């Protein structure tokens, strides 16, 4: 009989993977943001469960902080930019949603193989590694397959989520100060990126990066 927090970790693993798949299907920025919100909350719950498992109180603090910041503040903040940019939410996709899905499935398979060769299939952590790796790859794919600047931002955030999740699940997290530093980094990163987004919007009247290749007089 497995312990309930192990079950929770396992469930959250499936859940964040689900949100990962959902991100590549959605065309609308609002939905992608919703996925990010759910994924962050899933990771926060998993972090708390790991903390309970290992008896590490600093992981609770990290769970609460990342839940609040990444599950609430950051999505609201970015949602605010999207409204201020006033761009229509539907965007051009380099790859159609259905094809993206199959690519995401392929990435999961790749993550599966890589994680098995990296830590060996006997390791208890192999599946957590697989999910984190898959999410990292899906986040990267998400970033390259979209042309909206805000989607690029979201891609980075998805990858960040995956990396932090991997660190927490595989090595029971870093010292709290490092984790806090990473969270702070995320916030500063968003700030810098948002300034850039507004500069791009101001200079090119569009936040579609595929249009940045044309010359403006």
């Amino acid at each position, binding site marked *: 009989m497995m312990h309930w927090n192990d079950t929770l970790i396992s469930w959250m693993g499936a859940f964040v993977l689900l949100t990962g798949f959902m991100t590549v299907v*959605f*065309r*609308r920025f*609002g*939905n992608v943001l919703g996925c990010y919100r759910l994924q962050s909350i899933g990771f926060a719950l998993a972090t708390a469960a790991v903390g309970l498992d290992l008896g590490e109180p600093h992981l609770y603090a990290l769970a609460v902080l990342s839940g609040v910041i990444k599950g609430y503040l950051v999505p609201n903040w970015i949602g605010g930019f999207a409204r201020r940019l006033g761009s*229509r*939410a*539907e965007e051009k996709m380099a790859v159609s949603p259905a094809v993206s899905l199959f690519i995401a499935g392929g990435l999961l398979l790749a993550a599966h193989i890589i994680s098995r060769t990296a830590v060996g299939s006997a390791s208890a952590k192999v599946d957590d590694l697989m999910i984190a790796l898959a999410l990292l790859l899906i986040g990267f794919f998400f970033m390259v397959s979209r042309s909206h600047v805000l989607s690029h931002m979201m891609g980075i955030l998805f990858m960040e989520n995956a990396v932090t999740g991997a660190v927490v699940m595989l090595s029971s997290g870093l010292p709290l100060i490092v984790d806090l530093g990473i969270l702070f980094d995320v916030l500063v990163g968003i700030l810098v990126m948002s300034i850039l987004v507004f500069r791009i919007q101001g200079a090119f009247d569009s936040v579609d990066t595929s249009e940045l290749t044309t010359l403006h007089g």
Partner: protein
Amino acid sequence: MTHFNAVEGFLSIWTIDYHIENDRPFFGRVERDRLFCCLESAKSELGARLSMLTARDYGRMNDRFSLLVILDIPATTSYLAIETPLPDDNLTYRSLTPLFPNASWPEREIRDMFGITACDTPDTRPFIRKGAWPADLFPLRKDISPHRAYPIERVLLPTTVVEGEGVIEVPVGPIHAGIIEPGHFRIQVIGDTLLSLDAQFAFCHRGIEKLAEGRDPLGALLLAERQCGTCSVSNTLSFCLAVENAAGISVPPRAAYIRVILAELERLYNHVNDIAAIAAGIGMAFVTQQGLVLKEELQRINAGFFGHRFLRNVVIPGGIRSYPGIDPLNEMVELLAPIVRRLDSIVAVAIGNSIFQDRLENTGILTRSNANELGGVGPAARASGVSIDTRCDHPYDGYRILPGFDIPTRHECDVMARFRMRLDEIPTTLALIEAAVKSLPVVSSPIAATIPIIAPGSWGFGATESARGENCVFIAFDAHGRIDRYAVRTASYLNWPLIPTTVRGNILPDFPLINKSFELCYADVDR
């Protein structure tokens, strides 16, 4: 007055004779052979839009038929009517369709109803005639009785043919799976992508224009009121304005304000209905049902305060029949505000739903140039950035005296824009109702002017803004003060031809949604 002078200058150049009177359309008579050039010049110099194209049969031996063109001159608040007598031995004229694309339907209709042919017109198919009378019989001529049965001829529906590999034609209607009016759509598709659409109407032609002939204004009022359900006030109002225009009278102030209230109440329940209908087009049942509840409440308010769910039997030539009094009207205004607030919360549910946004945005784009060229009117044109509203451009009744109000426009041109357009117009409507109620004079002045005996041969023109756009009526009287010609051009008649321009490239299951975003009336075409 420079625009006024420009019109006068134009008339003096092109017409045989012309009249300019206050509060009446400019009128000029133009020779048949100069008509096309005259209108070309009107279009380029005065920026004229074609409001109405129809014909008259004077029923006399010589100079029996004439063609009547009514233009909307945007720079002035007046219309310009141009009459062109046709020689008896040659009932043809040069087609106006190349000049005004929206002349195509009226030209086909004039061919069916009067036997007057437009030369070089791109579309020669019958429009009204579906085989209920022989091809050589022209119902609106004076020698044809509306009370006689004529042999029915079986005709095949004329079609356009689109050919090519993989092109499939899907005929839809005129009898549909749901309880809607008859319209026949021939849709050419490649796979599920729409290639072209040919819409045909007038399957239930009722001959209202013919039936009105020979009646006095009050008798014809019943016909005008019942032409269609949802534009009842607007159609009646246009009719009454035309009669008043012919009689040369104006309505008392109380009636003028009540008419504004009626017209805006009609707009309100129509807009709420259209919002619900668009939600129904994508199967969003919650929003549909809640919207229909609100529409029902609005119609009950109509019935409670004015005695009829469609606000019939209130407007009469010369004024109004009755109204509930100022206190009940103030009460009514207070009932409307909460309904609109509830509408806002329901619509917020719809707009926040990503499937809803996905289905509506970028669907059925009506480009601004198409809306302009085809003479689109109403919320559909305003959602494509064309700022056109009869209430502002040609104010009538209370709209002349009420303080200025906003006519919002949008620029996204898609189904979502048309959805939001209706929402945007509702505050204006509420404000107008409130202002009209506030401005109602308390003194007991009459609410209807008496219609004097109408001078033989006089005519009048009336135009109002319905929930779908501008509805126009032209009325001419005979020597006994009875109606000699009653011609109607409704907003739906102008806007139906817009829909085929919006569907190309959309997928077939989205066509009903695009259609609903215009929510046009079939009965207004099958009049």
